[in-house]
């Protein structure tokens, strides 16, 4: 039986990698994907806990996370499309109008 810690550590690493992606990439689509990666890392911890605590709550939460992730991805991609239409780029550094 694989102990709980292993899963947690793996998910932590994946999560950190996702953060890294969000930090350093300069392509909105990839950033969005990295966010999905982080979400899934968290989902993994949820499922692991639900398994090791023997309660369904974790799985239910993951279910909701998926729903929210779907909504988030849809909206994010829609935003990306409209942004790309206006200023032929996906580079977040190019989108700095929102400041003083």
């Amino acid at each position, binding site marked *: 039986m694989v102990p709980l810690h292993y899963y*947690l550590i793996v998910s*932590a690493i*994946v999560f950190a990698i996702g953060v*890294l992606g969000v930090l350093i*990439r300069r392509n909105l689509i990839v950033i969005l994907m990295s966010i*999905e990666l982080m979400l899934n890392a968290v989902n993994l911890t949820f*499922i692991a806990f639900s398994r090791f605590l023997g309660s369904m709550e974790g799985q239910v939460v993951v279910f909701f996370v*998926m729903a929210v992730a779907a909504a988030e991805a849809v909206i994010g*991609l*829609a935003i990306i499309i409209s942004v790309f239409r206006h200023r032929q780029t996906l580079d977040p550094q190019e989108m700095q109008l929102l400041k003083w």
Partner: protein
Amino acid sequence: MDPSTLIFFVLATLLVVSSLMVVFLRNVVHCAMALVAALLIIAIYFVTLQAPMVGVLQVLVYAGAIMVLFLFVIMLLNPMTPEQPRRAWWTLGTLLALLLAGGLVPMLTKSEPAGDPLAATELFGSPEMLAKSLFSDFVLPFEIASVLLLVAIVGAVVLAKREH
């Protein structure tokens, strides 16, 4: 080392590698495919953790729908300009991420090992149980999620529609 642990480590390696590929590959489509791989591996983890339902949903929703949507958008925009990274920012980001991982790992390992896995019964993770808790304890969140999805649909249509 018993086979389940072996499988775990193999999957873990694959998962980490594919996640790294998501972050570090230059080509967006390659990133997407790497992410698909990562998602599938996580789905396998779910199944091994007695959450087959959620695992299948993972494949169905993430790999089957969301990622296809990503690819669809990538093809639609087809961004040709390759991104040029800036060294300083990369090093800073990597440093921060490493710190995060270095902080999280001990954090999570310090948490005392959870109780008996025997609590997981035969039915555990089956559609029945998931549905039971979904429609008994979590009805309200469930409904709210449905509304959220509706809102997302409308929002997406409004955002992506060409105005003219």
